[in-house]
């Protein structure tokens, strides 16, 4: 056992397999929530930019509603209130995932909206002029370019999403953060585990952001 003053690395080493399980859950939740909320956010962006008033309203209300709520509240809501409404038990992972998707979609919507607006009107025109329908023009012409332009910002938002997944602590879902807390309390090793957790989050997010910056530079070449 390696000792460094009172700092006990051994605790962390022993807990690594358990913490790794937690990290896998964090990553899985981040990945699924990112895919779901980018998809939903893109639909909302198309609605906000639609010429149909009703769609504009739905998109605008969605975005303004979820951006005015704390994420924590949304997670609580889906875990504690939805079971009352549907009269049954909901799975903590599923309810957290749904909460994240609905919440983050509001942010991804605004990113995709500016992405779509960054594509000149002529691009859509030339798609329509070839006989493509609206859905085809979006799918094959406008959205691929919008995604490409917005990729750095989409990834940055996904990094924030990854950090936010630590909030599932409140519904007792064993993500990386919750696992660290569990070990910390079980072994009474708060300092070691919280420092380690901070270090892991910092290193992962820092290098992810760095990669995004490098990507951004490459894209601007």
């Amino acid at each position, binding site marked *: 056992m390696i000792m460094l003053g009172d700092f006990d690395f051994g605790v962390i080493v022993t807990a690594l397999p358990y913490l790794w399980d937690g990290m896998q859950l964090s990553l899985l939740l981040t990945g699924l929530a990112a895919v779901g909320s980018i998809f939903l956010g893109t639909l909302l962006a198309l609605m906000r930019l639609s010429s149909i008033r009703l769609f504009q309203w739905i998109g605008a209300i969605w975005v303004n509603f979820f951006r005015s709520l704390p994420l924590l509240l949304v997670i609580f809501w889906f875990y504690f209130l939805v079971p009352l409404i549907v009269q049954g038990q909901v799975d903590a992972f599923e309810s957290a995932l749904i909460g994240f998707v609905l919440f983050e979609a509001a942010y991804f919507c605004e990113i995709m909206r500016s992405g779509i607006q960054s594509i*000149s009107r*002529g*691009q859509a*025109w*030339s*798609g*329509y*002029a*070839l*006989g*493509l*329908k609206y859905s*085809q023009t979006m799918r*094959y*012409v406008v959205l*691929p*370019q919008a995604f*490409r332009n917005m990729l750095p910002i989409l990834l940055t938002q996904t990094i924030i999403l990854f950090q936010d997944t630590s909030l599932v602590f409140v519904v007792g879902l064993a993500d990386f953060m919750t696992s660290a807390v569990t070990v910390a309390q079980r072994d009474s090793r708060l300092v070691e585990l919280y420092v380690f957790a901070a270090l892991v989050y910092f290193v992962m997010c820092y290098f992810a952001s760095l990669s995004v910056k490098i990507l951004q530079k490459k894209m601007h070449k």
Partner: protein
Amino acid sequence: MIEFKNVNKWYGTFQVLKECTSSVKKGEVVVICGPSGSGKSTLIKCVNGLEPFQEGEISVDGVSVGAKETNLPKLRSQIGMVFQNFELFPHKTAMQNICLAQIKVLGRSEDEANTRGQELLDRVGLGDLGYKYPSQLSGGQQQRVAIARGLAMDPIAMLFDEPTSALDPEMINEVLDVMQQLAKSGMTMMVVTHEMGFARRVADRVIFMDEGEIVEDATTDDFFGKPHSDRAQLFLSKILEH
């Protein structure tokens, strides 16, 4: 084949098209010219419904463009359009640009689309550049790919909206040559352009527009020989001086 009847269009309270009436027969090449802001680009965009108009009627091959029941995507697939800024899809190669609508709209197989695409790239003189992305091509080459993309749909008419205005001078002719060949092959064409040399050589008729109105609609010889209106004379004297 293309008929305009009393077409009126407003942007808010500003009237961009006023009682525009004319027609283009099958196989005819019609050049539309006029000062900038005269509504010529707007008029040509009304033909395939890219711009809506409030009053009047436009029909293409007997199909009314403004009618609610008209299947616009289907109609557009039969009318090729070439834009001032080329508007190639930058995330697709030249060949993919030409194939996309053939596959998604006409339902051709990838092989059929590629074969047709290669024929057309050969025809516009870019046979070996199909693998390049638009950003790797010159303006003139991009515009020729755009023409090939329109032709790939086997259209019954082609619309050109200032196809050479965004080009460097030395690239204008390569595009005009392709258009001239196309005209010779019997394609029905409407061309918004300031290239009066092209109009003289290729057009059957010239429409002159000013402030949203069709001021002059004459055969090419008449238009350049003895334009009736003062405005057309003034325009020609300005543009032909050089």
